[in-house]
C-alpha cells in the first residue's frame, strides 16, 4: 500500500469494523470478567474463548488471507484486542501470537515457514509466544546473552534464559531472540528461532504475578536445545530486521488492550457515579467526582485515536509507524491507568472490593506503563527521534 492510499484510511471505523467490534465484544461478554478470574482459580488457559473467536476467524484478522487470516492488518487486530479487554477478557496471547509472531512471519518467513506456522496463526489453531527479555538485559537488548551456536550436524544449539515471557503455558512454540555465537566465542547479531515448548532442554518456571489475567508469566531456560535451520527466521545473525517488525505491532496491541480496559473501567465508574446517592443525589452531580471521569474520557479517546493512527501507519508500511506506536503505547497506558484509578476513586471503598472487579483491572493497565517498553524509554525515543535531542543513554 502506498502512502497516497494512506489518506483514504478512515478515522471512523467502517461498517465492517463496527460489526467486527460488536461481534467480538458480544462473544467475549458471554464469558466476561468472571471467566478471566475463574481461569486463574482453576489454573487453565482461556481455551473456550480463544477457540470460539478463532473458529469464527477473529484471532488471525491481521494475517494475509492467503494464509487463512482475515487480511485486515493491525487496524483490525487492535480492534479485536480492545474489544476483548473492554468485555473483561484481555488476552496477552493475542499480542504475542498473531501480532508479533504473525507480523514477523508475514514479512520475513520463508514459504515453508509460512505454511508451517503462519497458516495456523491465521486460523488461531497455532499459538506462538515471544521471548526477548532476559534477566540481565531488560530494556538494553544489546546485552542479550542467549546464544545460538552452529552445531556439527548442521543445526544449532540454543542456550540461555528469558524472563517475563507471556502465555507460554498455552503456546505451541516460542519465538526466541538469541545471538549467534561466533567461532571466536563472541556474540554476534540477533537471530530469531522458533522453539517447541516441549523441546528437550527447554524448561520453564512460572513467575507469580499481581496481574490476575488470562495468561501467565514465565522464566524460560534453554540448555543446548537443538534447533534446525528451518526454524530460523531471517537466517543466522539475520534476526534484527524481523524483530523490529514485531515490536511495533506489540506496542499497538499493548495500547489497544490498555484502552479496552480503560473503557470498561470508565463505563463502570460513570454508571456507579450516576446511580450512587450519598447526600440525596447521585455523586456524579458533584464536579469533584464528574470531572476526573471526564478527564479520563478525554485521555482515553485521544489514546484510541493515536492507536488507530499507529495501526494505520503500520498497515500502510508508512514512515512514522514506530513513532506513532510508541506514542500510542505511552498515551494508552497513561489513559488506562487514569480510567481505572478514577473509576476506583468514584467507587469509594467499593473500588477495592473484588465484587466490583476494578482491582482486577488495575495491575493490567499499570503494567502497560512498564511493558512492553517502559514509559521512560518511549520518552527517550521521542526526545531523540522526534525532537532531535541528544541521546541520553
Amino acid at each position, binding site marked *: 500500500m502506498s502512502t497516497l492510499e494512506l489518506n483514504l484510511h478512515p478515522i471512523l471505523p467502517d*461498517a*465492517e469494523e463496527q*460489526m*467486527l467490534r*460488536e*461481534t467480538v465484544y*458480544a*462473544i467475549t461478554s458471554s464469558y466476561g470478567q468472571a471467566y478471566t478470574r475463574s481461569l486463574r482459580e482453576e489454573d487453565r488457559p482461556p481455551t473456550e474463548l480463544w477457540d470460539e473467536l478463532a*473458529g*469464527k*476467524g*477473529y484471532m488471525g*484478522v491481521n494475517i494475509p488471507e492467503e494464509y487463512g487470516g*482475515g487480511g*485486515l492488518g493491525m487496524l483490525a487486530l487492535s480492534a479485536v484486542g480492545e474489544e476483548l479487554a473492554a468485555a473483561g477478557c484481555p488476552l496477552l496471547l493475542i499480542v504475542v501470537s498473531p501480532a508479533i509472531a504473525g507480523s514477523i512471519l508475514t514479512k520475513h518467513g520463508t514459504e515453508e515457514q509460512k505454511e508451517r506456522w503462519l497458516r495456523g496463526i491465521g486460523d488461531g489453531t497455532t499459538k506462538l509466544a515471544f521471548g526477548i527479555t532476559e534477566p540481565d538485559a531488560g530494556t538494553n537488548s544489546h546485552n542479550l546473552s542467549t546464544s545460538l551456536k552452529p552445531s556439527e550436524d548442521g543445526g544449532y544449539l540454543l542456550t540461555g534464559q528469558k524472563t517475563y515471557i507471556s502465555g507460554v503455558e498455552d503456546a505451541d512454540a516460542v519465538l526466541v531472540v538469541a545471538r549467534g555465537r561466533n567461532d571466536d566465542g563472541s556474540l554476534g547479531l540477533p537471530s530469531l528461532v522458533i522453539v517447541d515448548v516441549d523441546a528437550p532442554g527447554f524448561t520453564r518456571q512460572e513467575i507469580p504475578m499481581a496481574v490476575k489475567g488470562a495468561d501467565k508469566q514465565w522464566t524460560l531456560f534453554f540448555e543446548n536445545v537443538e534447533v534446525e535451520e528451518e526454524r530460523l527466521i531471517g537466517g543466522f545473525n539475520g534476526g534484527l530486521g524481523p524483530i523490529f517488525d514485531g515490536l511495533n505491532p506489540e506496542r499497538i496491541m499493548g495500547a489497544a488492550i490498555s484502552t479496552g480496559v480503560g473503557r470498561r473501567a470508565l463505563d463502570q465508574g460513570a454508571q456507579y457515579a450516576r446511580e450512587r446517592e450519598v447526600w440525596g443525589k447521585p455523586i456524579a452531580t458533584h464536579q469533584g467526582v464528574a470531572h476526573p471521569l471526564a478527564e479520563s474520557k478525554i485521555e482515553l479517546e485521544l489514546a484510541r485515536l493515536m492507536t488507530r493512527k499507529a495501526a494505520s501507519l503500520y498497515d500502510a508500511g508508512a514512515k512514522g509507524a514506530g513513532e506513532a506506536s510508541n506514542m500510542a503505547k505511552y498515551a494508552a497506558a497513561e489513559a488506562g491507568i487514569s480510567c481505572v484509578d478514577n473509576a476506583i476513586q468514584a467507587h469509594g471503598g467499593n473500588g477495592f472490593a473484588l465484587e466490583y472487579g476494578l482491582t482486577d483491572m488495575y495491575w493490567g493497565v499499570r503494567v502497560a506503563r512498564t511493558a512492553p517498553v517502559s514509559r521512560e524509554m518511549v520518552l527517550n525515543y521521542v526526545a531523540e527521534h522526534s525532537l532531535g535531542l541528544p541521546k541520553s543513554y
Partner: protein
Amino acid sequence: MKICVLVKEVPDAAVEKRMDSNSMRLDRSGEKNLNPFDTHAIEAAMQIKEGGAVDVEEVVAVTMGPESAVRALHKAVSLGADRSVHLTDDALADSDVSATGYALAQVLKSESPDLVLLGQQSDDGECYTIGAVVADHLEMPSLTQVIKIDTAADKLTCERQAEYGYDTVEVTLPAVISVGDAINEPRYPSLKAIMGAKKKQLDSKGTGDVEIDASKVGADGSRTRVLAINPPPAKQAGEIIEDEDTNETVEKIVAWLDERKLIA
C-alpha cells in the same frame, strides 16, 4: 422452499429511548442496529435451511426503512441470509403499523415466499402485531410467539408460548410465523460473513416497483393518529420484605399475594 425474514433497523439497545414531543414519535436519531428480536427469526430460518428436513433454496431478508436501514440488511446477510430486499421510498415515511404491514406484504407478494419469519416484536415500537397484519394482506395463516418449528414439505408443526402454557399447532404453508426469543440462541457472524455481507445481492425497491398504492402508506395513508403522548405513570415504591426468618418471610409473601387475590 423459499423463506423471507422480515427485519427492522431500530435504535441501538444501548441508546436510551425517548419520545420527540414535536413529531410525537420515537426519536430514532443516534446509533442504530438490527432489531435483536429479528436475529432469532434469521437463526430459525438458518436452522430450517441447515436442518435438511426440507430443501431451502434461499433465505431473503426484507426490510422497509430509510437509507440507513441497509446496515440492518448487511447484518442480516452476515448472519446467514442469502440476499436482501430494501423497500425505501419517501412516500413510506411515518407509516403506522397497518400501513407498514400493507407495504411489506406488497414486497413479499413480489417474492412469493413459502414461509415468512419475523421476530416477536421490534425493540422500538414494540407492537408485536406486524406479522398478523402482513399475514392478513397475504391471506396466509399466522402464528405468534412460536418457540419450536418442525418442518415438513408443505406444513409446519409449531409450538407456541401462551399465557396458559404451550400450544402445538399444525400450519399449512405458505404461512407467516413470528418467533419468540426463546426459540433459539442466534449465532454470531464469522469474520468472513461480515466481510462478505456487502457482496451479497441487495435489491432496493420503491413503492412503484411492488405496486404499493401510495394513498395507503405514509402519514396520510395511515389509519391511526397520535393525539398525545404521556409518560407512563410513576410506579409506587415497592414493599421490601426483609428475609430474617425464611418461614416468616414466605408467610408474609403469601399473605401479600392473597390480599390482592393473586393466588387461589
